[in-house]
């Protein structure tokens, strides 16, 4: 009897192994399918123009490694695809980990360039001098984008807020949707009396850093905290990564949260229009945020092109969206590794070109404004 049960158990174990094995395999399979199904869609519209793009790509052969910010990953992925299609024999491997990890990798010499949501800090520049012989790491702005403020309020379609109200909402000073401050900005809307559920990031992130930079820059009286990668505001709920914030907003009635525009588009979450003092409230779109970034100033010294966005936060230009972030590529101004320099330069040249930048709009990013793009191109051409 006992023996029988034992063999029964064994059979069960075999069955379990088979089932879990099958599950694991199907998991891998669906993963691959995802990849192949998403790549055509992201490269679908570029590939039609790939032939035209090839004109702006001067091919180099070789292999480079890069890593960093996930905020610009979708843009990089589609650029890499175009570049590798046009230039057989080239491999660009961008690992989307995080800005922090990208900079660590770069300063250890493993990366040809790194992606980062914020420009290099002084300590990081000092560390980069070990890798860049005779030079230093510089931050080259490359991908701009709007941070959308998404909300879930059935029956309210065109929510308008301004910086001060946003700051008070995210700091739990305005707690109900029918608060007079919100009512004043939305006279025609029927606002419920329910509580506002604010949602922020639980992990440290460049998105939070840039969003709080905006709140501090545009509403210093209402936002008493310094900008930081970790959330400082009072109250509210936290979720992991932009995807988590977006899905929590989607799930919770009365919720409001911030994330990159693409997440709002992907989950069809309505976004707040910002009353900047311009003639009409500004919507979060690629074109509007390019216009916002246009008022940024270059503050980097030498070849460094770090941007100061504080003028963008308070812009009153029509159709200029103020809550923007710019992600950078980090490279050495001098002293890049000779083996990878040609391909690095060629690739960066391509993504900074008019063709390269034009692809950003389709993915919810914002192309660099012309004045900055011109500086970026000449900086890249001078890399050595």
């Amino acid at each position, binding site marked *: 009897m006992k023996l029988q049960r034992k063999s029964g158990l064994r059979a069960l174990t075999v069955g379990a192994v088979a089932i*879990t094995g099958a599950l694991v395999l199907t998991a891998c399979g669906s993963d691959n399918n995802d990849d192949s199904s998403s790549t055509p869609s992201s490269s679908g519209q570029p590939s039609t123009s790939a032939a035209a793009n090839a004109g702006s790509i001067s091919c180099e052969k070789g292999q480079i490694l890069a890593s960093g910010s996930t905020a610009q990953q979708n843009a990089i992925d589609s650029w890499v695809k175009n570049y590798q299609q046009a230039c057989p024999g080239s491999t660009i491997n961008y690992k989307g980990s995080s800005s*922090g990890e990208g900079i660590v990798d770069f300063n250890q010499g493993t990366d040809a360039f790194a992606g980062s949501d914020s420009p290099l800090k002084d300590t990081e520049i000092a560390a980069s001098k070990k890798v860049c012989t005779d030079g230093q790491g510089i931050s080259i702005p490359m991908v701009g984008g709007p941070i959308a403020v998404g909300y879930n309020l059935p029956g309210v379609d065109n929510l308008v807020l301004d910086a001060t109200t946003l700051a008070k909402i995210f700091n739990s000073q305005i707690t109900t949707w029918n608060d007079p401050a919100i009512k004043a900005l939305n006279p025609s809307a029927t606002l419920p009396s329910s509580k506002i559920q604010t949602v922020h990031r*639980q*992990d*440290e992130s460049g998105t939070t850093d840039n969003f709080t930079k905006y709140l501090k820059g545009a509403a210093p009286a209402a936002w008493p905290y310094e900008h930081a990668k970790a959330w*400082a505001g009072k109250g509210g709920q936290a979720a*992991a990564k932009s995807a988590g914030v977006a899905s929590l907003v989607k799930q919770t009635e009365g919720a409001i949260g911030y994330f990159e525009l693409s997440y709002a588009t992907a989950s069809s979450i309505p976004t707040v229009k910002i009353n900047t003092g311009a003639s009409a409230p500004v919507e979060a779109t690629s074109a509007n945020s390019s216009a916002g970034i246009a008022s940024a100033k270059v503050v980097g010294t030498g070849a460094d092109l770090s941007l100061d966005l504080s003028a963008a936060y308070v812009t009153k230009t029509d159709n200029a969206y103020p809550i923007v972030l710019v992600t950078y590529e980090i490279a050495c101004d001098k002293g890049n590794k000779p083996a990878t320099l040609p391909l690095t330069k060629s690739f960066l040249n391509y993504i900074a070109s008019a063709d390269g930048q034009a692809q950003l709009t389709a993915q919810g990013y914002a192309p660099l404004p012309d004045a900055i793009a011109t500086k970026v191109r000449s900086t890249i051409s001078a890399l050595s």
Partner: protein
Amino acid sequence: MTTTAPPTSAPPTTTRTVTRPGDRIFAGMSRGSGILLLVVMAAIAIFLTVRAVSAISKDHTNFLTTFEWNASLTPPSFGVAVLAYGTVVSSIIAMLIAVPIAVGIALFITHYAPRQLGGPIAFVIDLLAAVPSIIYGLWGALFLVPHLHGLNLWLDNYFSWTVIFAKEDPNSSARSLFTVGILLAIMILPIITNVSREVIRQVPKMHQEAALALGATRWEVIRLSVLPFARSGIISASMLGLGRALGETMAVATVLSASPQLSAHLLDPIGGTFSQNIVAKFGEADEFGRDALIASGLVLFVITLLVNGAARIIIQRRKEYSGANA
């Protein structure tokens, strides 16, 4: 030492034994494994301590009583108060839910269920252990959290006098330590059930038959002979489960709404745990921030050691009182 003694003392009987080199190799291997384990544990402890000390010495606030975690501030300010509280509380909730259910399942499988039912149940429980924790996280965030909202409202309505079930904002979602506790309970169920089942199966038939012969009902048999015999084993099983609950990372990070506040209201979406905090902060942390996170890891390490030490003492004591040695 002891392995070399028997052969020399008993050469007449074991002259033709072929297993002697095997014995020696086996003894060496097991001793080596034991030493290797100690070395690995020591290496972990030393690594954690060295990295932690350099971070804590630069911490501007009290490491043990600060709520906030912001190592990138200048001067840095971070502490583990909220994390320690959240880790311990969510694990306690998980244990309160999981242990009775797990023991119940184990008893059901061994004593009550018909054979045809016991096998499949045991199999399904085993399968629970094979589900990756991120899957539990996704299921928790997308299914459990919305569905627990009603239960939360009900608890808040009728049990808010207990303080722990009071909810500050009834509309906030159920991304709380309570929900995490429930999720952890499901995750640690298989290991506690499995080990308990094996232990309960080892209870000598004689004990049970003796109790039956004295006229005991089935429940009395379980209460008088099975549970006392299996108690230390069940406690060990629970400790294994607790180990998993203390260290669970991805599921907690996906489900919990973490924020640096300490609250007795278990249904409020606030709090945090050690491993959740590490996974949330590690990506963007610089060199110093990582050291700070490692310091928090050291505290978790110490808590785990304390818990396991306490469990050993309890088991040791129980062993003397139960009839397990009979």
